[in-house]
């Protein structure tokens, strides 16, 4: 299998979708705003000025605008679609998050609000972000995590199985917060932290939810999607299943979005780091005022 055949997401389709729904995207910003506010709050706690920053997958520029308002000297907005970025203003570059055109060691800060869940090679994207950072530069990116849209996924599988006798992938897979934390470590970030925040949004129906998803440029981006549009009866049934299973007391239905935030620093000598094993200069037993007890040899790990 070639790299292209292994790819989960059709990046060209992602680009076209972001372009086609650019106008709507400028109006469907509640979730992007939530993510942008959260990242801005985290940055406000970091006591240092950021001269040069990159907003990756900037979309309509909600996060870029906040960075500029916080006093970041130079903010570059980057997105797959020029049209999607049109409202962003300021410095812009059209690029693919998987092929970052940023000079290595040039950024004080790289942020991204809910964009990186649609890349095929997330480790590669994170490594490129780390390289774009100056030593001791900061990355704060949020992306949709594993529990996102579990209701829609379930409703579509049930409805499609009932109406057509089979199911096709219609909701993208999202990585789990623990996997993402490990990935952050593997890709060479210092002081890595991954945390997750669940946002439940009420919608009148699954149809309204799907309209919003398109508006955020998130219509089904999967390479393995069915060539044909969803049948009308399948869609109708999915809306019913969704309403039956995920209704709230107020008559609306719930849609879950899990926002995973990854924070890490480009390594620098000034950062705190654990000592090497065996480098201790004092004995724990002395510190505790006790005598050391030799443990029996452990059996070999199988």
């Amino acid at each position: 299998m070639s790299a292209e055949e292994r790819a989960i997401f059709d990046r060209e389709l992602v680009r076209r979708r972001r372009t086609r729904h650019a106008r709507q995207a400028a109006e469907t910003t509640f979730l992007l705003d939530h993510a942008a506010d959260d990242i801005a709050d985290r940055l406000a706690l970091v006591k240092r000025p950021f001269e040069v920053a990159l907003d990756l997958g900037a979309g309509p520029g909600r996060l870029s605008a906040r960075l500029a308002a916080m006093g970041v000297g130079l903010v570059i907005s980057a997105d797959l679609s020029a049209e999607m970025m049109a409202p962003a203003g300021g410095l812009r570059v059209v690029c693919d998050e998987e092929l970052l055109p940023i000079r290595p060691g040039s950024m004080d800060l790289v942020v991204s609000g809910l964009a990186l869940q649609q890349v095929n090679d997330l480790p590669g994207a994170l490594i490129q972000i780390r390289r774009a950072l100056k030593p001791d530069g900061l990355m704060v990116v949020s992306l949709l995590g594993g529990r996102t849209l579990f209701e829609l996924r379930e409703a579509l599988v049930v409805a499609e199985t009932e109406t057509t006798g089979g199911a096709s992938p219609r909701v993208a897979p999202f990585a789990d917060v623990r996997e993402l934390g490990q990935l952050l470590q593997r890709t060479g970030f210092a002081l890595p932290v991954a945390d997750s925040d669940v946002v439940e949004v009420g919608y009148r129906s699954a149809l309204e939810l799907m309209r919003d998803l398109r508006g955020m440029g998130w219509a089904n981006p999967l390479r393995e999607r069915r060539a044909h549009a969803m049948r009308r009866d399948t869609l109708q049934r999915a809306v019913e299943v969704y309403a039956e299973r995920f209704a709230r007391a107020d008559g609306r239905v719930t849609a879950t979005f899990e926002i995973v935030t990854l924070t890490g620093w480009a390594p620098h000598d000034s950062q705190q780091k654990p000592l090497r094993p065996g480098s201790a200069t004092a004995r724990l037993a002395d510190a505790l005022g006790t005598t050391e007890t030799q443990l029996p040899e452990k059996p070999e790990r199988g």
Partner: protein
Amino acid sequence: MNEGDENANDEAIESPVSAERIDRRLLELLVCPITKTTLEYDEANQELVSRKARLAFPIRRGVPHLLPGEARHLDDKRQS
């Protein structure tokens, strides 16, 4: 719902760049997406050229498009 857009617009107005021209500060921060080597700015053709990748990336309305799919191969004749 669009309050944040005001900020974005202010940014664009305050920026010393005209809508059509690429910002020099941006140029210094960009490299070829494939080879990560320095890009040459071809002002006449509004392109960013990666000698190493043999690609010329278009600049449209002051915004560089650094996608391999949108680049012109240097060995191809330029469309006029």
